[in-house]
């Protein structure tokens, strides 16, 4: 069966510090991968998605970036965090035989001080 791992679960960072959130999927190959952000009490905002290694689509221009160094690894990064980057970050994967249902990780709660 497929599983998705996302870490860390919580993170407290000062303004201006770098960021690296990691997401890996097991049990499948060539999945679509996604990064979402959710502000408190709000819906999900799609940040990036990837249909393959080296193929990243950015939905929202900002100081975040994403990379996919391996087939089942998706990384969300920033060189300098802003206060507005606080939120709950979710990674997800999907694949065609599963009717394109997206399956989510447990999320990372990021607080910027």
């Amino acid at each position, binding site marked *: 069966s497929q599983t998705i791992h996302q870490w860390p679960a919580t993170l407290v960072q000062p303004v201006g510090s770098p960021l690296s959130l990691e997401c890996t999927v097991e049990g499948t190959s060539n999945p679509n991968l996604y990064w979402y952000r959710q502000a408190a009490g709000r*819906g*999900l905002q*799609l940040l990036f*998605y990837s249909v393959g290694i080296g193929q990243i689509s950015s939905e929202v221009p900002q100081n975040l970036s994403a990379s996919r160094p391996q087939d089942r690894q998706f990384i969300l990064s920033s060189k300098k965090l802003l206060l507005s980057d606080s939120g709950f970050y979710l990674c*997800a994967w*999907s694949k065609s035989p599963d*009717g394109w*249902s997206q399956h*989510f990780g447990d999320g990372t709660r990021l607080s910027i001080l």
Partner: protein
Amino acid sequence: AQTVTQSQPEMSVQEAETVTLSCTYDTSESDYYLFWYKQPPSRQMILVIRQEAYKQQNATENRFSVNFQKAAKSFSLKISDSQLGDAAMYFCAYRSGYSNFGNEKLTFGTGTRLTIIP
């Protein structure tokens, strides 16, 4: 571009009763998928149910069922025999059925917060 609308920010239901959450969407496509996701206080996003647009039969998963009205572009979720563990935010989502680059993403509604009254 597709849009998904959930017009009920909050709903409440007595335990063991039935509740229906509304969702409407706008699209010009004929092939697509619709989803309901549940987000409990733990904030994990959990897939509740999926509907393929080409299927006329409404999807069901145990106590959860949908009323899919393709012509009306309506996709409501019915929860029967509501339980305390059903308390969560519920999100409706749309995905294109066409596998072109740019169609792979889900479009989410703004969510409905469901409260279960003991």
